[in-house]
């Protein structure tokens, strides 16, 4: 074993589920972090502790438990603000998911800033969650959607993207890190939006746990990510938006907690961020997300990035050497995700075969049906990495792939 294979963040022990045996005997190799990350003990224990010792509703009562809950909920917001380097806590809206964040922006941005015939620019590699909310605007209000092409490498074709702008372009929404190719967005796309003075939303679902995010440096106007892909609980998402835009856009849902004053004739609305948080929020999940952020910070993003770059490169090169494997996209700016097909074997077969070997990968269209059509495939297999993966796991995976190929071509 060469030295490079000793690379390991040594955090596997923090994740209790990773000691589970698959089919009672196989060690679990979890290569499906892009679908959802596993949870460290800290997150599990702290969410339990919240329910056991501190739980009540937030921002409503005056009793001790209400204070303790509210403190934890708002403390999580501070952690997220620092995590993204937002200017203020008012720019951090808790949602139930990243999907809800995109829907919120699509609906309320349209209401304030758009009309029939106005245009939105998206791309071919977007997840359904960054397509359908905009389809709604097209279907309901006659908004025009334009889609940037991609290059064979998996990166957005910047020249084509640039050519899509007109004086009717009102907003751009792009993935920060493709959930199929694992390619990072070319930051030129953001600077083009800046030059043209068009707001841009970044879908950060796949980037938030794998890159150091700085929304001010990135220069995006909106950024969404989900708790469950960043080692936190499911049921919590984050929408970052600049205070200017969030102040101007109308509320999304109506309900408790988002009001200023209500009479039977009408209502005024709360200031940011409460304005966008109608109803009892996922407060324990928000706290869990805060703990997950602490956990990632403790490992350190420099270490996370180094570790995941190395493992991604290692796996890419290993797979690239195998003649029966077709990798989708190139190796430029690829981070933590590799989609591939075994020639003449459906991704379902690959996934079921690997499952009994203890290896969890994703198979299917990855909520990117338009992209699958573009690639000319019905589905792909995808492996994706997190802090707990190792080069040894990649070796075991490659051995299993050879067995799989042999089995189905016997």
């Amino acid at each position, binding site marked *: 074993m060469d030295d490079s294979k000793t690379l390991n963040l040594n955090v596997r022990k923090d994740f209790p589920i990773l000691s589970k045996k698959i*089919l009672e005997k196989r060690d679990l190799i979890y290569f499906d972090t892009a679908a959802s990350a596993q949870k460290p003990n800290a997150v599990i224990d702290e969410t339990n502790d919240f329910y056991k010792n501190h739980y009540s509703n937030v921002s409503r009562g005056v009793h001790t438990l209400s204070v303790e809950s509210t403190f934890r909920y708002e403390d999580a917001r501070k952690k997220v603000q620092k995590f993204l380097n937002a200017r203020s806590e008012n720019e951090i809206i808790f949602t139930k998911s990243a999907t809800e964040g995109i829907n919120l922006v699509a609906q309320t941005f349209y209401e304030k800033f758009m009309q029939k015939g106005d245009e939105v620019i998206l791309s071919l590699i977007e997840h359904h969650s960054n397509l359908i909310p905009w389809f709604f605007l097209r279907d309901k209000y006659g908004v025009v959607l334009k889609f940037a092409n991609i290059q064979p490498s998996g990166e957005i074709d910047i020249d084509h993207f640039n050519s899509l702008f007109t004086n009717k372009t009102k907003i751009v929404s792009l993935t920060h890190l493709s959930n199929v190719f694992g390619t990072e967005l070319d930051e030129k796309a953001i600077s083009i939006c800046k030059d043209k003075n068009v707001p841009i939303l970044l879908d950060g679902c796949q980037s938030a746990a794998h890159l150091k995010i700085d929304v001010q440096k990135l220069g995006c106007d909106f950024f969404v990510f989900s708790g469950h892909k960043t080692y936190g609980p499911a049921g919590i998402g984050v929408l970052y938006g600049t205070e200017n835009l969030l102040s101007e856009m109308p509320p999304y849902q109506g309900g408790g907690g988002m009001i200023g004053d209500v009479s039977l004739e009408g209502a005024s609305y709360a200031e940011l961020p409460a304005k966008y948080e109608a109803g009892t929020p996922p407060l324990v999940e928000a706290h869990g997300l805060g703990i997950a952020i602490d956990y990632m910070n403790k490992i350190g993003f420099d270490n996370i990035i180094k570790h995941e770059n190395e493992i991604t490169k290692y796996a890419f090169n290993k797979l690239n050497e195998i003649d029966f494997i077709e990798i989708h996209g190139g190796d430029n700016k690829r981070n933590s995700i590799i989609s591939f097909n075994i020639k003449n074997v*459906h*991704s*379902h*077969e690959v996934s*079921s*075969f690997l*499952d*009994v*070997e203890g290896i969890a990968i994703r*198979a*299917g*269209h990855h909520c990117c*049906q338009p992209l*699958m059509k573009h690639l000319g495939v*019905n*589905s792909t297999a995808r492996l994706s990495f997190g802090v707990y993966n190792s080069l040894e796991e990649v070796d075991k995976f490659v051995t299993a792939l050879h067995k799989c190929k042999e*089995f*189905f071509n*016997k």
Partner: protein
Amino acid sequence: MNDLINDLYQEIILDHGREPRNFGECEPHNKSADGHNPLCGDNLKLTFLLNDQNIIEDIKFTGEGCAISLASASLMTEKLKGKKIEVAEEIFKDFTNLVSGSDEELKVLNEEDSLYALKGVGGFPMRVKCATMAWHAFKQALKD
């Protein structure tokens, strides 16, 4: 090799997955339906000709999918061709029980049937939809 995988991918499944029988469109036909698995993108189109004695005279399918979904569709067409609708519906019930790991006693299918090869799907709950896609299309076509 793992038993679960060998149970799931019996030779007959791999064979029908690679070379599906009755692949194409039935002409003429008077019943048709599309099957679709939105979770993975697999899809098929089923067409058949039901004569005035309620017998399935001919039945074919086209589509794309994994070995399990193609083999299930292929074996289904072989099994249903020439059957009366009432019998076909009994087979449908038995088959869905068989692949979903239900304890329900089978009425018309038995271990001799080629469809029995799909019993291994029961060990992979996430693949049950692959195995039943064509069958639900068949049910749908009867309703339309």
